[in-house]
């Protein structure tokens, strides 16, 4: 099956802990993204990663960092979670090859609850 996979589905933790979410895509894409969906359902880009080039949304706090081992994986680490980090985190991928569709495909999301 070719798709975007995320683990875990849910994670509950306490303020100050470190968490890490995994994302893997088997679509052969060269670009991956992390989005945050808040309680009002607004989706906002956090990071995009292509060919070892990382683009960071300037509003993202420094405690967030993406980690990539290869172009099929882009994990998200939060160093010390805060209550406002409670949200659904969605991973996506697309191809930026010339002549391809740039359509983004999303994983099922990881719901984070910070107590």
């Amino acid at each position, binding site marked *: 099956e070719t798709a975007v996979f995320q683990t875990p589905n849910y994670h509950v933790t306490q303020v100050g802990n470190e968490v890490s979410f995994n994302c893997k895509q088997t679509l052969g894409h060269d670009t991956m993204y992390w*989005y945050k*969906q808040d309680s009002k359902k607004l*989706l906002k880009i956090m990071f*995009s990663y*292509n060919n070892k080039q990382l683009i960071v949304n300037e509003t993202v706090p420094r405690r967030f960092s993406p980690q990539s081992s290869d172009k099929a994986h882009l994990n998200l680490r939060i160093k010390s979670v805060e209550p406002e980090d409670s949200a659904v985190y969605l991973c996506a991928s697309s191809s930026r090859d010339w002549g391809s569709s740039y359509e983004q495909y999303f994983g099922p999301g990881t719901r984070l609850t910070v107590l």
Partner: protein
Amino acid sequence: GDKVKQSPSALSLQEGTNSALRCNFSIAATTVQWFLQNPRGSLMNLFYLVPGTKENGRLKSAFDSKESYSTLHIRDAQLEDSGTYFCAAEEDGNYAQGLTFGLGTRVSVFP
């Protein structure tokens, strides 16, 4: 939601009826995607559009980059069409910034 404005914010449809959703862009959108988010939270791809129109079954979508809007038409609504519909745009020359999303239209289809 300021750069991509979706309307209406919510819609209640009787089975078998038709409706239209709209997105207006205040950014220079080059491509548009429409998604349906189900109650579990998964985003299902509906359409990927460059300027023009596409049709898939009971759904039809159009994107006019000059007038900066996109529409999604639902024909003969079914119960399984319920969910939140999002439009998202890629900004000209700014693909690395990802998609800019609207706030969504929550659609409820009733018998």
